[in-house]
């Protein structure tokens, strides 16, 4: 069981856990996919330019 699945199992009836889990994963993946180009400035610790 993943940490999220454990948390959902504490708050939801057992039958609702798998669909809720799939829903959260899908929504997160979609949000990352859609917003991956959004940049709010430099990312100082991403060491891709010689300095962190």
């Amino acid at each position, binding site marked *: *069981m*993943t*940490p*999220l699945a454990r948390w959902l199992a504490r708050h939801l009836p057992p039958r609702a856990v798998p669909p809720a889990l799939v829903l959260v*994963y899908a929504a*997160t*993946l979609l*949000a*990352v996919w859609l*917003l*991956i*180009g*959004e*940049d*709010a*400035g430099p*990312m*100082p*610790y*991403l*060491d*891709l*330019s*010689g*300095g*962190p």
Partner: protein
Amino acid sequence: MTAQALVLVLGALLAVPLAWALPARMVWNGLAGWTLLVLASLSPASALWLAGSSLLTTALMAAGDRLGQRTALAAFGTLVLVGALGVSALWPGITWVGPAYFTLRHLHVLAEWWMGRLPNPGLARQLRYQLFLPVLMAGPIHRLPHFERQCARRRWDAPDFFAGAERALFGAAQAVVLGGWLMGQARRWLAAAGLASGFWQDWLLSALDWVQLYLRFAGLSSLALGLALMMGLRLEENFNRPWAARNLIEFWQRWHITLSSWCRDYVFQPVTALTRSPLIGLVAAMIAIGLWHQASTYYLLWGLWQVGGIVATRQAQALIRRHPALAFWPAAAPVAGPLAVMAWLSLAHPALTRLLALAPP
């Protein structure tokens, strides 16, 4: 997220099935080869540097063992590695991938060998340790003995695999959605509200920078640690709820833990032992952390700013021990402590930039 970062993340994702599909005796060499391929495709200069510096440190340790000249050769290796890192920042037009991290890993191996706690690992073990794709671009700065123990103990464990996948996904979301999009919205909102330039506004924006830094960096660390866990390795944690730190000392034990523990072990402790002065050790360690971020006057002062905060915290703690009545409202500490830490950290930028502006050019 930049295109190079995306290639590294996709490369690390592809390394996960590779880690389980390759025969056990080939897996770490195979993963190191895959990492070198991805790195060379993005930045051939970085791949050469990483391979060359691994060769150099291994050769220096072998020569040191043979000639009995450990101290001189460890010092020479340190100078070359740190010098190369400094020079790389001045090199125009080349994208370097991960030198700030792999240099500290090299120095860790060299220091442990110099202190006699680690034998010369040899080139193959060095390369397997250095060429681990998930931690290449944003750490954590993992240690060789821990990494090798984890590799040796690795077993397929489905709960760990899915916990790792979940952590990697949420880490990516934290870095991209919260640290990128949401913080971008906050900045646009502040700009639209006509936030004029001034000391208090700069302080507020600096606090926002710290929040964004946490969201992005802790997110990237979670992504790396999650991917490593999917491969069956539990690497060192980089963050332990730094926003809950009640003072600056606690903050530095919770923020970028692998860097601060590196500086504790290889800067603070040796300098303190040499000078018999914890204060000098602290100054050296915080300056090292500052200059690791960037070799500049600003980050030199930033390191001293942190020393000031830590010394003030120690003094306040001693004062409260002597006069317990001064801790007049202990129940407020869980909120007031983190707020004071954030105020001190974010004050550094507006205060130091103004101080530097006063200095003659």
